[in-house]
C-alpha cells in the first residue's frame, strides 16, 4: 500500500465510532503537543533531559503502586494515572532538592530514581492479582486511552499553559543564566522546582500513548528539531509544538496503516526527522561559512 492509499482510510477510521480509541489517541496527542513543545524547549535549553528521563521512568513505580492498591487492597479510587502523577511529582522534587543542595551526587541520585522507580513498579505489578501487561505502560498503548483521559489531559494542559505564561520571563532567565537571575533577587530555587514539576506533569500526559521509555524522546526531539530554526525561545516553543503535532499525526497514521505499535512508530518517525534536520542544518552552516 502506498501512503496516498491509506490516508483517506486513516481519516475515515478517525470518525469511526467503533474505533474511538484511535480518535482519542490523536486528540490526546495533539493536545499534549502544546505543553510538550513548551516544556520540551525549556528542558532542551536548560539541558535537563536526563532529569526528565529519570522522572518518566519513576512513573512506573507510581503506576504499579496504584494498580496494586486498587486490585490487591481494593482501594477503588486509586487510578494508575493518579499513581503516575504522584510518582512523577515526587521524583521531580527529590531530584530538584538533590541538585540544589548536593550537586556532586546529582547523577547518582538520578540513576537511582530511574532504576528503583522501574523496579518497584514491576514488583507491584507482579504482586497485583489478575494479568496486567507492563509492556503497555513501558512502550505505550493507544487502546488504553479513554474519554476521561482526554479531560484529564485537557485540564493539565491548561494548568501548564497558564503557569508558563505567568512565569515565562523567569524560566527563560534561569535557563539562560541562573547566576544572573539569583543576582536580580529572583527565587531561583522555587522556579527551578516549579519547572521540574511542570516537566513531570507534561511527562504524565503522554505516558499512555508513547510509554514511559519513549516519552523522553517526545519531550526532546521536537524541541531539538525546532531549535534548528529558532532564534528566540518563544518561537522554538511554538514550532516545537507544531512539530510534535505532526509527529503524532503522521506517526499514528503510519501505525494504523501498517498495523505497527503506535508509540514506537511515532518515536522512530520523530527520530528520523531529528537526524535529517541535524544533518541538513550542519550542511547549511557549512555552506554559509563557505560563502562568507
Amino acid at each position: 500500500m502506498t501512503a496516498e492509499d491509506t490516508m483517506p482510510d486513516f481519516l475515515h477510521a478517525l470518525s469511526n465510532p467503533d474505533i474511538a480509541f484511535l480518535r482519542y489517541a490523536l486528540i490526546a496527542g495533539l493536545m499534549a503537543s502544546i505543553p510538550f513543545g513548551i516544556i520540551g524547549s525549556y528542558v532542551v535549553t536548560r539541558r535537563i533531559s536526563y532529569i526528565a528521563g529519570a522522572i518518566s521512568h519513576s512513573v512506573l513505580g507510581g503506576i504499579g503502586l496504584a494498580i496494586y492498591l486498587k486490585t490487591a487492597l481494593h482501594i477503588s479510587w486509586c487510578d494508575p494515572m493518579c499513581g503516575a502523577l504522584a510518582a512523577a511529582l515526587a521524583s521531580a522534587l527529590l531530584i530538584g532538592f538533590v541538585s540544589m543542595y548536593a550537586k556532586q551526587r546529582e547523577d547518582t541520585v538520578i540513576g537511582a530514581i530511574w532504576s528503583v522507580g522501574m523496579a518497584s513498579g514491576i514488583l507491584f505489578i507482579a504482586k497485583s492479582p489478575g494479568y496486567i501487561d507492563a509492556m503497555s505502560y513501558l512502550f505505550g498503548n493507544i487502546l488504553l486511552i479513554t474519554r476521561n483521559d482526554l479531560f484529564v489531559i485537557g485540564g493539565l494542559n491548561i494548568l501548564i499553559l497558564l503557569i508558563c505564561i505567568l512565569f515565562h520571563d523567569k524560566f527563560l532567565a534561569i535557563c539562560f543564566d541562573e547566576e544572573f537571575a539569583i543576582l536580580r533577587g529572583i527565587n531561583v530555587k522555587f522556579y527551578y522546582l516549579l519547572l521540574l514539576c511542570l516537566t513531570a506533569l507534561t511527562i504524565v500526559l503522554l505516558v499512555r500513548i508513547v510509554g514511559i521509555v519513549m516519552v523522553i524522546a517526545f519531550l526532546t526531539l521536537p524541541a531539538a528539531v525546532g531549535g534548528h530554526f529558532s532564534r528566540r525561545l518563544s518561537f522554538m516553543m511554538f514550532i516545537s509544538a507544531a512539530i510534535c503535532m505532526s509527529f503524532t499525526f503522521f506517526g499514528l497514521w503510519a501505525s494504523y496503516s501498517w498495523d505497527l505499535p503506535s508509540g514506537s512508530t511515532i518515536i522512530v518517525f520523530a527520530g528520523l526527522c531529528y537526524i535529517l534536520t541535524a544533518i541538513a542544518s550542519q550542511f547549511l552552516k557549512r555552506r554559509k561559512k563557505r560563502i562568507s
Partner: protein
Amino acid sequence: MTENNGSIIKIEKMRFAYYNEIPVLEDVNLEIPANSSACIVGPNGGGKTTLLKLILGLLHPTSGKIEVFGSSPEKARTKIGYVPQYTAFDPMFPVSVMDVALMGRMEKHRFGFYSKADRRKVLEIFDEIGAANLKDRSFSELSGGQRQRILIARALVSDPGLLLLDEPTANIDPAVEEQIFDILRKLEKKLTILTVTHDLGFVSSIFQTAICVNRKIVIHPTSQMTGERIQEIYGRKIRMIHHNHDCGGHNA
C-alpha cells in the same frame, strides 16, 4: 546613588576559604568610596573572581564582614549590575538581544511579561553604549565583543549604583577591546565601576586605583604600577610588553 554617604563597599578583616582549606583570601580590608572606580588585578588563582563573588553575596566570608551600600551583599544585590564573561553562555541558546538585555529588569514584575517601560529603558541604554543596531539580532549570532556589550547593557538597565565586571575584554580581539574600554571610560564618570582585568595597560588608562589581589590585598594608585611593583604582586617574573592603547593600532 549612595546611601551610606562615602563608602559603597566596606570589607573588614575578611577571610575566605573553600571547605576550611588554605584560605583563598586573607586579612582583606577594603573600602571603595562612592564614585571611585577601581580595577582588580592579580595572578590567576589569586582570588580575583572569588572577591567579586563575595561582594555579590554568591559566596560568604569564612570570617570578617562585607557591607555593600551599608547592608549585607544579599540585600544590596539588586543595586549592583554584574557583567560575567560572555564565554560562560551556551552559544546555541535561542534568545534575542532584546530578551537578554531585558533580563536586567526581571525582578520588576512578578507575573507576566516585561512592560513598555522596561523596553524603553533597554533601548535607551543600547543608544548610550552604541548597540542600537543590534537590537533585533539573535544573541548567538553576535561576535564576542558584541555579546560582551549586550551583557554590559543588561547590567545597566537596572540603574545600578555599582557595576562589577569580570574580565570584560578576555577572549575579545584588540580592535574591539578598545570599544569596550571607551564604554567603561564613559560610564566611569557616572557610576562606580569595579572590574577584574588581566590587562595592565587598561589599568592605567581608565582607573586611578588598582586593587592587587594575591591572597592578600594591596591597593595602589595606577600611576605607581611599575614593572617592579607588578612583579611583586605576581610573585614572579613576568614578561612585560609595554604597549599603549592609543598607539594608533587601528591604522594598521
